């Protein structure tokens, strides 16, 4: 039997019982639509999150903060870990770690020409900068042999305000500030000693580069060599009793700094030798998988390790659960639809018993009869699946239109990229239709075998 004849015949048989076929298709349509829409929501959610996440920082960077990790009951996880040169060396030795840098953070009053403000400075290993994904929009990175050269995040300029202009009644417009204004300029830093606030010292840093907009985490900070920043820090902490990193909260994000409980280490001995402990350690891995593995391993050891990938993992997990639940609902619907197809095909066999007998007598083989019924069942799947896919695209478009007006302000500030809540990638479209056809095919197996087993004379005797 020619494929063409098979398809024509199957199609014609289906439309002989138009209402029933349409109703059966409807079951597949609803099933397919629910699966596709639900999966598309999951995909859209995940994609939107990844898009947002990637803006917040690199997925390959792990940050280790000073202090301890605590579980939900408030018990410390593992031994308390110090962040010193030994730790840096240890971390460098972990397989999968590409680059490591210790970090000191300081804050300072700053002056840039007529503009004044507060800035946050980060001291790190200059040699590791390129490896730690410091990418530039303008200028260059500091060189190890230089002193007091820095790169600034592209928002740092917005820490400065022209007070004289403002006093003169000019409205201050941050958006009008150009990041390149900082380039090749000297920033004057005025630092106060923390034990004696009257004690001041001035440091000058020279901006040699401006970071690009890739990484929002680094947008507001100024990066220089660790030796230079340590000198500033040493001046600030001179004469203080407390451990340095406790006085200087990690600038980002605030919530994470709260998790660090100073009380855990307070009151123990050896404070002085802890003063030089790093505020944090930054490391880079090869890929997302390594990031997850290494940051989990570090946490296991008691390090307060965090990466955006960890947040992403949580989102992925939630998204997976949502997808599983939603997909499950769709699967049940499709399963019911499959029963509908089987039922329709069995009914059709009852109606067409005589006809099946006739075509067998005039030479239809087992294969022909099976192919005919399987094709009919698959066609129901195909029609239902395609209509379902069409409906899904419609629903997806509506969801996007309604949803994006809510989502845009909330999730992506200032980003020009559109956020799709429901995404139907080509593979999902193909999968949906293919799956619907497979459901049809599967549902047709039992009826087709029944049709084959019909004895032609018994079928024709059927009155």
């Amino acid at each position, binding site marked *: *039997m020619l494929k*063409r*004849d098979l398809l024509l015949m199957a199609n014609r048989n289906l439309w002989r019982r138009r209402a029933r076929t349409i109703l059966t298709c409807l079951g597949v349509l609803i099933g397919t639509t629910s699966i596709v829409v639900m999966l598309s929501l999951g995909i859209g959610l995940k994609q939107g999150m990844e898009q947002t996440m990637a803006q917040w920082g690199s997925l390959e960077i792990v940050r280790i903060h000073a202090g301890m990790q605590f579980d939900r009951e408030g018990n410390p996880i593992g031994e308390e870990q110090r962040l010193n040169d030994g730790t840096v060396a240890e971390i460098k030795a972990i397989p999968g770690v590409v680059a490591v840098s210790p970090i000191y953070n300081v804050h300072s009053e700053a002056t840039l020409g007529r503009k004044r403000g507060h800035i946050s400075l980060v001291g790190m290993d200059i040699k590791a900068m390129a490896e730690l994904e410091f990418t530039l929009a303008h200028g260059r990175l500091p060189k190890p042999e230089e002193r007091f050269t820095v790169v600034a995040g592209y928002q740092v300029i917005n820490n400065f305000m022209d007070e004289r202009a403002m006093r003169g009644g000019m409205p201050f417009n941050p958006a009008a500030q150009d990041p390149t204004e900082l380039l090749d300029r000297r920033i004057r830093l005025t630092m106060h000693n923390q034990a004696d606030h009257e004690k001041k010292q001035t440091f000058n840093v020279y901006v040699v580069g401006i970071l690009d907009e890739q990484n929002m985490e680094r947008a507001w900070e100024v990066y220089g060599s660790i030796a230079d920043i340590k000198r500033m820090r040493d001046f600030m902490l001179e004469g203080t009793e407390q451990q340095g990193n406790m006085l200087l909260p990690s600038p980002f994000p605030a919530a994470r700094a709260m998790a660090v409980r100073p009380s855990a280490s307070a009151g123990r001995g050896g404070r002085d030798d802890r003063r030089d402990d790093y505020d944090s350690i930054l490391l880079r891995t090869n890929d997302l998988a390594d990031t997850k593995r290494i940051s989990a391993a570090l946490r296991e050891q008691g390090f307060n390790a965090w990466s955006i990938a960890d947040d992403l993992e949580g989102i992925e997990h939630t998204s997976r659960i949502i997808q599983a639940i939603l997909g499950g609902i769709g699967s049940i619907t499709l399963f019911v639809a499959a029963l509908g197809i089987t039922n329709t095909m069995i009914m059709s066999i009852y109606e067409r018993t*005589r006809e099946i007998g*006739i*075509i067998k*007598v*005039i*030479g239809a*083989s087992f294969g022909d009869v099976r192919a005919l019924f399987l094709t009919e069942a698959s066609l129901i799947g195909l029609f239902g699946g395609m209509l379902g896919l069409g409906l899904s695209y419609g629903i997806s478009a509506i969801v996007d239109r309604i949803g994006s007006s809510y989502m845009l302000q909330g999730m992506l500030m200032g980003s020009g990229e559109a956020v799709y809540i429901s995404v139907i990638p080509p593979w999902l479209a193909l999968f949906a239709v293919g799956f619907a056809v497979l459901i049809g095919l599967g549902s047709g197996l039992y009826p087709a075998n029944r049709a084959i087993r019909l004895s032609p004379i018994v079928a024709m005797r059927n009155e």
Partner: protein
Amino acid sequence: MKPILQAADVLKKYRLGSQVVSVLNGITLGVFPGEIVAILGTSGCGKTTFLNIAAGLERPTGGDIVINGHNLNKISEQNMAAFRRRYIGFVFQLYNLIPSLTALENATLPLVFEGIPPAQREKRGRVLLQKMGLGDRLGHKPNELSGGQRQRVSLARAMINNPRIIFADEPTGNLDSRTTEEILRLLISSVREMKQTLLLVTHDLDVAAYGDRIVEMVDGSIVRERTVSVPLK
């Protein structure tokens, strides 16, 4: 000459509950190529049962059917369809056309299962239906045709493959005497023309008289055979 169809001691028993009904009690019959054999018998004597067995639609309880050297008992159910397509044409009392198909489509249906392309099918169907006097009824559905016209479509369908043997089970049982004559003449003339063999089952002596040979059946056994000296046309 070797028979094209040889039935040897064919038995058929049905089990109805605890009772065993014997419908065919050892039928032995040879049909030669080109021959027209009429099987005559009263209702319920087992004619249809024998014909079905001879055409491979039903398995005998005992005995063998050999068609053109092939023992049907040795052909699997799977291959029987291809075998029937190749050797056998069937005409029924109740036409057994497919209601949703046109006359042309019904007549050419066996060619569909043979995998013959539509254009060729249509050409062959047209020619044959023309010969059956249905040249102007090609596009009609069965319920738009008279009984006699339906049986002509059914004849065309049986012959479209040019089979070696045609089995006709009371092909005129539902027709009036004039139409009966037309149909039988048509059937016999095309069988003769194509040098086919015909096994014709009937309870009507007048119909049986169209055969070269009349085989009389009573209660599942052949009781008498006679050659018709001057067959009706």
